[in-house]
């Protein structure tokens, strides 16, 4: 299809100028930031910017030995995996109900779940802080898991719901006439059929969890719970001041796995990002 269009397409020159410029705008800062990560500290902030720095692995050594980067990574990974699991456990049944059943209040409950996506962290930040503090969960990965799960639950539910709605009714009916229970249908038929949707939902939830900043900032205070996202803020204000090359490297450390995973699911991305409203 696309090639047919292209033959009759309009000026390719304009198209490539526009797309190309934006591509440069996307990539140039990234490359520059990468160069920041691999240069000595003295070449980052200077009277005039240095565009051809000397290569240095100082920052790389620093983040692993001077800072508990391994802890931050571990915390990020654990919190994300934990929160995604919680979400899937809660969301799959919920999505199933919203997509395959008719019942009173379906629209309203569905909308309520959707609306929690709108919840600004700042609104609930303070009560959540007190809640976790009173439960003694401050500065623990459990707290992070719980909060990430809560923040992402609506997204996960709606994405999976969208995929579930694609399953033809006939599949389900056939199973039902054969006498399978609803739960069985869910487990053996629906879930395998929406596996791409589940994976998409998990990936998007994971990305939002990695990015989560405000709650993590409030909850975590030591390397017990510091994640990659907030750990960056730790590279400022210490007696060594702003350590940009370390920041840049940490940024790339977090970027690479995310990039790989997202490229793998890019087909489903638009559907995931709009929680099912737009099919890819």
């Amino acid at each position, binding site marked *: 299809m696309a090639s047919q269009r292209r033959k009759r397409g309009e000026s390719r020159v304009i198209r490539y100028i526009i797309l190309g410029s934006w591509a440069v705008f996307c990539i140039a800062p990234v490359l520059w930031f990468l160069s920041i990560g691999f240069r000595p500290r003295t070449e980052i902030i200077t009277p005039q910017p240095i565009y051809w720095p000397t290569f240095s692995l100082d920052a790389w050594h620093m983040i692993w030995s001077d800072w508990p980067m391994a802890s931050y990574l571990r915390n990020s990974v654990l919190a994300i995996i934990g929160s995604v699991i919680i979400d899937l456990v809660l969301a799959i049944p919920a999505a199933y109900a919203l997509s395959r059943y008719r019942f009173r209040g379906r629209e309203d409950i569905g909308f309520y779940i959707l609306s929690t996506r709108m919840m600004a962290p700042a609104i609930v930040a303070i009560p959540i802080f007190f809640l976790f503090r009173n439960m003694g969960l401050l500065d623990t990965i459990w707290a992070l898991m719980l909060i990430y799960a809560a923040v992402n639950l609506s997204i996960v539910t709606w994405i999976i719901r969208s995929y579930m709605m694609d399953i033809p009714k006939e599949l389900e009916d056939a199973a039902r006439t054969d006498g399978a229970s609803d739960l069985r249908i869910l487990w053996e038929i629906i879930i395998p059929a929406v596996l791409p949707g589940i994976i998409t939902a998990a990936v998007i939830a994971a990305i939002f969890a990695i990015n989560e900043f405000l709650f993590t900032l409030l909850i975590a205070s030591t390397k017990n719970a510091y994640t990659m996202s907030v750990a960056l803020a730790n590279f400022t*204000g210490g007696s060594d001041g702003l350590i940009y090359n370390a920041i840049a490297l940490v940024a790339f450390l977090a970027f690479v796995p995310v990039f790989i995973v997202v490229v793998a699911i890019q087909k489903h991305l638009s559907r995931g990002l709009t929680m099912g409203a737009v099919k890819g």
Partner: protein
Amino acid sequence: MKSRSTLSRRTLLKSGAALGVGGAFGGLAIPALAGSHVGDVASILADISVPKYVREDYRTLYNMSGEPLWDPNKDWIRTVDWEKVRTELSGTTVRFAIGAADQESAAEGLVPFEKLSGITVELVPIPDDSFYDKAIAEFISGNASFDALQFFSPWLGDFAAPGFLANLDEYASKWNLPLDDFYETYASNYGYFNGALYGIPFDCDIQMVHVRNSYMEQVLGGPVDRVNSIPTYDELIRVSGELNKIAPGVSGVGMMLSRGFWSTYTWEHIAAQAGMMLFDENWEPVFNGDAGMKGMDIIMSLVANANEGHAGAGWPENRAAWLGGQVATNISWQDSGTQAMRPDQSQIVGDFTTIYEPRIEGGRFAPPNIAGSTSCVAASAQNPEGAFLMLAFLTTASIMAMNEANANGVAPGYRSVLNNPRLQEVSQPAKVWADSLEHAWCAPRLPGMFEMEQAIGNEINRAVVGQITGKEALDNAASAVKKIMDRNGFYGGKPPVEYAAAAPGLYVGGGKALPF
């Protein structure tokens, strides 16, 4: 620049972390040292010495002989009876909450302490940005998870007034803490609150003016003279104007003027020279008077020659700009005069001088003691005496002197240290700093100070960026401060802080002759 001394910072940080709460993978073994308090006191103390603590590259650079940079008679760890400590407290534990910025230097000091005392120490590092509220949250929840804490000294009032801190007078006299060796400005403002001792000064700060030698020489036509090169702030305004054009990318003066307390500190620094006091004896804010306004006027004049980022610069940004060579003079803490010696971070090694505080016509010589940190014991501590001893250890003269030699940002407040000739050789600003402290100005430690400093700074920042005038800023700040103080119990009859108790520490230079 890796130090090759046996007690390198990295090794100690790891062993320090091993003692800390919940190691990375839960598997960092507690080193055999902890708990094995069988150690020969003399040899442990002998190890706390220049060859073992100071970075090798600095020792070479300064040609250090290994002689102490302090007075052994005033060095608490060498005067206290460790056997007595061991008898009384061996086997106990102390939990120490510490701002992440100072964690490194604390970890260095703790291993020998454990050996000497038999006390085990657990480090609880907390990022500075959230320390205040985390500490308060711990206190008000009733079971603070630490015995000792070290924090930004302006918060002393907030923690001491509600009774969250333990009184240390008894311990100080029992164990002979050399309080008189502290400069009065530090003892009064970091240690005492309402006449009682609550803290031991930890990181003793002062703000000063620093200049770049090479640029200054071009403008002045001669070498930099600490006393006479920039004798007044008017001169600074003039010189910074010239320096502004001296090299591409270099501005005349660097200042911290971002929102929040950074602006407050910069303004306090300058206004103090004009004679500004924050409050009168009834705790009414009077800083929006003439002296305060003079400070604002000077700031606004300097802003024209300041680096473009001044309105967003806190200490990290200002430090980066100074070390990166983006400013020709800098109004900042004394560490601008020491950390610039670190080649791994500084572009200006060897090319800077810290001068005596410029004066203002009709004002006084009042170098400002601003920020800094103090170390205290929680009132709910499980092991208050052990905590006290640990803090006394960490703040002892020798360790503090060597912190200074290492330029790691934690600064000594002892006369015996700053006046030590060998220390003055390795710390560029030390002499000026030592002289200045006898005349220092300081803000009182009041409950609510944390809020007040931010309120004032927010207004000053608005003036700096032109949203309001300087006068409006100070007036707004004064009314905001009044509201905060009212909320904290002032003006209702019995103020939480007696003015008479605080007053002597606010300006210690009265009637003294200038050091030059």
